[in-house]
């Protein structure tokens, strides 16, 4: 974030100060990679070190253990998003006094757009984290989960054109989980609706439903696994 802020200060023609501020100086991008790593490790490392046995033979139900990991990850992600928000404000006040938080950006303000960007990113990353937890439970290895998590992160933008054509042809495809990965982009920029063919509330709901489905499948695998 600091590097992008400094670059934006030094080369405003490369990175606009307002755009960087509303985009949290790209902090969400790096946080996404970090959280994908944490999500895979929080499960896979227990299998890797053999500590899963010591966790599971306790008096607690497997559901409680799985839920404790999900809750820990959820709280950890919230703390990190709050830190990114606060650090964005610090960078803005230190380096960009010319950017007013109440300045207009589309229909909202700089501060409002920053909020939308962070909320959208948070909902989008949780769809990916739920998938990562599922994969880590399934394969008991962190590398597979991280790879799939990072691929998922880029999948929406890489496959955007192909997906857009496919949705044009087969409308029901708009409900596929890959389309839900666009939730962050659409919350931040409502014109994305032309690509996803879903309203923002529907896309957000769909994304949350898929997140819950992935978590439930992950829990089922965790519950049924012999260790």
């Amino acid at each position, binding site marked *: 974030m600091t590097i992008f802020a400094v670059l934006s200060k030094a080369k405003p023609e490369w990175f606009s100060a307002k755009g960087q501020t509303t985009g949290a100086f790209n902090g969400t991008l790096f946080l996404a990679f970090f959280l994908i790593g944490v999500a895979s490790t929080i499960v896979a490392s227990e299998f890797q070190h053999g500590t899963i046995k010591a966790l599971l033979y306790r008096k607690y*139900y497997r559901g409680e253990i799985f839920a404790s990991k999900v809750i820990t990850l959820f709280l950890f992600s919230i703390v990190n998003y709050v830190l990114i928000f606060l650090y964005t404000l610090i960078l803005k006040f230190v380096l960009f006094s010319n950017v007013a938080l109440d300045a207009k950006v589309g229909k909202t303000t700089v501060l409002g757009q920053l909020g939308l960007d962070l909320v959208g990113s948070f909902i989008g990353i949780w769809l990916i984290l739920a998938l990562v937890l599922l994969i880590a439970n399934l394969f008991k290895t962190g590398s597979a989960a991280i790879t799939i998590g990072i691929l998922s992160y880029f999948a929406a933008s890489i496959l955007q054109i192909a997906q857009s054509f496919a949705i044009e042809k087969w409308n029901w495809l708009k409900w596929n989980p890959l389309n839900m990965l666009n939730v962050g982009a659409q919350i931040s920029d409502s014109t994305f609706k032309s690509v996803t063919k879903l309203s923002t509330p529907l896309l957000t709901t769909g994304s949350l439903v898929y997140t819950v489905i992935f978590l439930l499948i992950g829990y089922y695998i965790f519950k049924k696994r012999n260790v």
Partner: protein
Amino acid sequence: MENILEVHQLSKHFGKKQALNNVDFTVGKGRIVGLIGPNGAGKTTIMKAILGLFSYEKGQIKIDNHPVSEASHQALAKVGALIEYPAIYPYLTGLDHLKLNATGDATTERIDQLVKQMKMESYINRKAKNYSLGMKQKLGIALALINQPELVILDEPMNGLDPQATKDLRDVIMSQAAAGTSFLISSHILSELEKLVSEVVIIDHGEVIKQATIANLNHQENDFIMLKTSDDAAARTSLAQVGITTAEAPGLVFNQTPSATLALVIKTLVKADIDIYDVVHQGEDLEASLLSILHNEKKEA
């Protein structure tokens, strides 16, 4: 005597393979029970089922009269365990592990006492990734004991321990058992196990062959004799021709019975022109008893 652990008619399959077949045994309160048998007999599977790590198709497991299964773990609050290998996070110190796992009152005092008992003071503050196999094993055992459980399940606890550490562990187990803790221990080091356990459960092919006290077991079983010959394979064949079967063990081991005496064995081998270099009477120890039981079971099969 009251039982802390009851395993009743426990059966489990891995695919088509029957891993456990109607396993039945008990562990009395304050008793140290050995779970012994050949590799792949099902010892670890039984232990994992008791700890709710495995589902099972049939049977019942009760700890202090409370059922335990993969979906019912409440009774496991009274259990400490070391299964297969120590559950250790490499980036934490031994002390961190003990603090992380210790629950209830006076945890600091309990940790200090256990570290002293297990003689881990010199490395307890080092990160576990730098521990030797023996150090990890001791930490794993300490983790099983830290919450003063009523039942402790130890799978091959002597693995990687030097003679002094083995003795220290024996002393710890004995003192805990004297205080009322029950132990279920599996080990292939039968000479060590014999010094600890008061009872054994012998498992083979997923079935309980026998549960008996050490005294009864040694009394009931016959002598085992090991021979060193110039050609063990040929000796085995010659003995088989006169109806004497040998145990699957290094060297040539047979169970001396009224119909299979040492004299008959020697005569048979001499007649077959096989030289005998040594005759070792294995006596009535746990190893001999186990071999005898497994040998008889094989003969009956």
